[in-house]
């Protein structure tokens, strides 16, 4: 199921979906070369501010400079533009594509920083690789968050969707539901705790499943450490 960039809009009115449809149409025309590139530019430019915010947070442990963040944003945009230049499906999720590429751009950035740090200070031991395979990806987490909010009951679900996904202010939510602002805050806190708790359980379950799958795989296929299954 594609993730709409605008939770309030039905799929037909989602600006990303509209642009992706236009892109697919332009690509079918022999004279659509310029239009295709203009549409991709328009599509990407809608997301630049959000990409910048996400990148700044994802890389914050490295204390990136503004120039580093600009470079990271540019890198993400190039990766997404490149992906769009190869394959376009109007049903694609542009936010999912962006999330995947943000993650890899930041991972590459962290690796570069660590490599440089080791060159300057060889005494520094190897850090664990930032791309931990058992950890859910950013795109997975975004998808799971929507599902968990949808799984909340009654008014908690509505309030959380309005505050977290639609970006409404607490006062607006209170007005829509005809309740006091404090009711919104209490409901949000309660729902947030439920979300975090279910998320933690899910993470534990996921990590356990990954470990179990690896154990099974190792037991079935002895791997020669130098590469390739043992004959």
């Amino acid at each position, binding site marked *: 199921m594609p993730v709409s960039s605008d939770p309030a809009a039905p799929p037909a009115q989602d600006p990303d979906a509209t642009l992706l449809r236009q892109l697919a149409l332009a690509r079918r025309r022999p004279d659509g070369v310029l239009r295709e590139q203009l549409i991709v530019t328009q599509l990407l430019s809608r997301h630049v501010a959000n990409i910048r915010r996400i990148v700044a947070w994802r890389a914050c442990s490295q204390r990136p400079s503004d120039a580093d963040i600009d470079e990271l944003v540019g890198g993400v945009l190039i990766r997404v533009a490149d992906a769009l230049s190869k394959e376009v499906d109007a049903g694609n999720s542009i936010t999912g594509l962006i999330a995947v590429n943000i993650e890899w751009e930041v991972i590459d950035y962290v690796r570069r920083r660590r490599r440089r740090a080791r060159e300057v200070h060889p005494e520094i031991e190897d850090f664990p690789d930032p791309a931990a395979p058992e950890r859910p990806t*950013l795109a997975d987490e975004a998808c799971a968050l929507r599902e968990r909010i949808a799984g909340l009951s009654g008014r908690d679900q509505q309030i959380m969707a309005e505050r977290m996904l639609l970006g409404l202010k607490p006062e607006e939510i209170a007005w829509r539901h005809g309740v006091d602002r404090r009711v919104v805050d209490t409901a949000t806190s309660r729902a947030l705790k439920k979300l*975090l708790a279910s998320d933690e359980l899910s993470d534990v379950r996921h990590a356990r499943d990954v470990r179990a799958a690896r154990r099974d795989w190792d037991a079935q296929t002895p791997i020669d450490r130098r590469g390739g299954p043992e004959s």
Partner: protein
Amino acid sequence: MTDAFDHAFLAAIDDLNAGRLHDDPQHYLRAVPAARHAEFTRRLTALMVARGPADHDEVTAEAYDAALSAVTATTAGSAAAGILPDGLRRLRKVRGIERDALIDALAAEYDLGPAGRDALRRYYHELESGALTGSNIAHRLLRSLARQLDADGEDFIAAARAVVRASVPQRSPLRPAPAMGRSAGDFERRRAPAPAARSQRIGRPDPDVELVERLFTGGPDA
């Protein structure tokens, strides 16, 4: 009862909703126990992905330029000149039109003599090489090019406008070509033969060359 994590998380969400999320993540993280910084970052960025662009995220000129730079970087064209050069080359290839044939057609349309045609060839080469600033190209020329390539003129105008502003090199106009014999029928020349002849006598460029220069560098309305 909310703990420090929830409190900071809701503060970040409300700031995000109001379009005033602090640029420095430490503004929120300093209220959160260090052991939960990674979790906070993970959850907040997952939320940002799930929401997509905010209503208050305007597409600024900088955002458009950044997107355009990325699109241009994935094509074979010159980064500074935007997407027009590569688009022109690809369209010509798709249509099976040689560069000389296109130049001949344009020269005929603007009734250019040999000097004007030479200038046209040089400027067109610069255009396809990405050496010209697209936003300085006359819209009537872009429409002519689109017509010759059986494409939409408005796409050409939009593509010419799409120039990566931060890195556009300033270039000086082409040196005037030496005056040569001209074909009959140039509209402007027919209207004002005396100034053209005078300009030739005092070493100013051929009016056909001037026309070509205006078309390629004189701005949208030239």
